[in-house]
């Protein structure tokens, strides 16, 4: 399964000069927990609601602190054509919870670990349904169907 097949909301972006209070308001307005920080077309970082708590509130930084002072840099991203297994590996190896998805240099989506878990658990649910049917009605699967005589 390709990452581009997973429905994702488009990322909410802000400029590096955005203040942390504006960033919090943007998150609230769009009901998201993170912002992609971009300078023009270039992605320069990600800031999350957790960053605002741990790096701003916990340190008593003023509300006009620029978001690029507290964002995470060195962002790991994936191509839109990457496989879900690539995403799982990236989440695991880089200890991140969000991966920007890039298509021809442009960030087109933000895949969260939560999104991926939901998709995979739904798929697992489909498989489980089949297994459950076999466990509940084992004999239904024993007898082959009689051949259909045509003509």
């Amino acid at each position, binding site marked *: 399964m390709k990452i581009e097949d997973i429905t994702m909301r488009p990322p909410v972006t802000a400029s590096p000069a955005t203040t942390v209070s504006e960033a919090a308001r943007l998150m609230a307005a769009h009901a998201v927990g993170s912002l992609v920080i971009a300078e023009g077309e*270039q992605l320069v970082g990600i800031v999350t609601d957790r960053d605002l708590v741990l790096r701003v509130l916990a340190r008593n930084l003023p509300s006009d602190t620029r978001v690029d002072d507290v964002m995470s*840099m*060195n962002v790991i991203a994936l191509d839109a054509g990457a496989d879900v297994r*690539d995403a799982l590996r*990236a989440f695991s190896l880089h200890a991140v919870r969000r991966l920007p998805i890039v298509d021809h*240099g442009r960030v087109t989506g933000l895949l969260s670990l939560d999104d991926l878990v939901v998709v995979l658990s739904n798929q697992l649910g489909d498989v489980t349904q089949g297994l459950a049917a076999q466990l509940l009605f084992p004999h239904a699967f024993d007898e082959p169907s009689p051949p259909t005589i045509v003509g």
Partner: protein
Amino acid sequence: MKAHMGDQVVVRGRRIGEPDRKGEVLEVRGPDSSGPFLVRWDDSGHTTLLFPGTDAVIEHLEEKEPA
């Protein structure tokens, strides 16, 4: 931040005790040799896109060659 294919990128650990991560630049996707870079990480061998931050370091290929 500019890099070329074959350069090494070093991302410093963010916390005390966290090791630096190193990888080889396989492709340069940005204009004028800038990021993002397609990087193969030394520690895992897997490949991801990296949008380097200002604290990332590029070690150019020629700097690693003996004089």
